[in-house]
């Protein structure tokens, strides 16, 4: 499994690992049911604290991408979560919450806020 850590990246190391593994699963580079190295082996390979890798694995388990079988190791799940939309939705709600907090503390009017959301939506419209 090819993972890299970029110290010049704004994301914490565990999140960089989560994203890269998510991508590897989505692109099929990591196949359903495939075994992934243990978090300790990956820690040595990447020269990072194994707790950091463990945290990334825990997050990926929570997202339903990895599963740990006692005594056997960690694997990509056989059936990827069908309900991925649910995760996307949760992430959007989270982002919106942060944006709303920023807008309020920055003194943005509600009408401006709605307008901005509308703009952002149109911005990403695929022709």
């Amino acid at each position, binding site marked *: 499994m090819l993972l890299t*850590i970029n*110290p*010049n*990246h*704004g*994301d*914490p*190391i565990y999140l960089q690992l989560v994203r890269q593994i998510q991508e590897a699963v989505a692109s099929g580079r990591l196949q359903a049911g495939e075994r992934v190295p243990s978090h*300790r082996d990956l*820690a*040595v390979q990447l*020269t*990072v*604290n*194994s*707790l*950091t890798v463990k945290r990334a694995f825990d997050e990926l388990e929570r997202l339903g991408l990895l599963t740990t079988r006692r005594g056997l190791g960690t694997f990509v799940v056989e059936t990827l979560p069908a309900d991925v939309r649910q995760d996307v939705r949760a992430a959007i709600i989270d*982002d919106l919450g*942060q*944006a709303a907090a*920023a*807008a309020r*503390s*920055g*003194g*943005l009017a509600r009408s*401006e*806020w709605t307008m*901005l*959301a509308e*703009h*952002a939506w149109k911005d990403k419209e695929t022709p």
Partner: protein
Amino acid sequence: MSILSLRNISRRYRGGEALSGIDLEIDHPQVIGLVGRNGAGKSTLLRLLPPFIHASSGSVEVLGVDPWVDPIALRGRLGYVADQDAVPSGVRGRDLLALCASVYPRWDASLIQTFQRRLGIDCNRLFSALSRGQQRQLALLMAIGHRPELLLLDEPAGNLDPAVRKEVLGIIIELLNESGTTVILATHLLSDLERLAERLVILSHGRKVHDGSIEDMTRDLCRVELAPGPSDLGRLAQSPILLAQEQRGTGTVLILACAPGVAGATVAGLAGPGTVVRDAQGMTFEDAFIYRTRDLPAESAVAGRP
């Protein structure tokens, strides 16, 4: 059991105070980065623990005991790598390892031999004839062969090139993998800390000025690059979200107290028309560190990667 408990520690020298009112509690195994410039008090703090020096006031408890009650017994449970190796001339690597093996009843000679072979350290050579990197690696092996409960590292990888530094860090990571060793790592190399430490303690002029998780450093900070041209920050200029603003060439860079994902909307909502965000990114650990410690006395600013 408490691993370390420092309460209101001060350490005075004739010239002044090296440590002042330090409280530090470690109650479960973890890796702690101890950061601060030369003279901030990092080495003094570490030297209280084996113990090599007395605190002028306050109380010290290491692995549940007063370190001065039985220092020799305590040292059997600690590992310590000083920032400088003090080895008499004419001593070979194997002599040093043999000495450790004779001192520590729990010495794991096969573990050390494995590391020594893998790292390619020729222990038949004089210590002084080894490269600086190999000297540091050997010093580290001498500190871990008895599988200490608490490992104190004072710039273990200082002045080493990145490849050798990675080898040294690798040893620490393997040790951590095998046992629940607590490590206090004093260093000014932030990129190493981000890989290893879970908790960060910053010292400045002998005082503790920060104690928190690594992620506290970067949480809710982002760097926003505006498109070149005149920009009118409008209401953003007065907003508490705007933390800093600097001119970079033709463009303006803003540091904002918000997640990168909402930076665009924030700027669009608050700044005047024509102010366009070209790029918004979370801050790197190193930048966030420099930013968050900017108001501290100049001495505490910490150098980035070498």
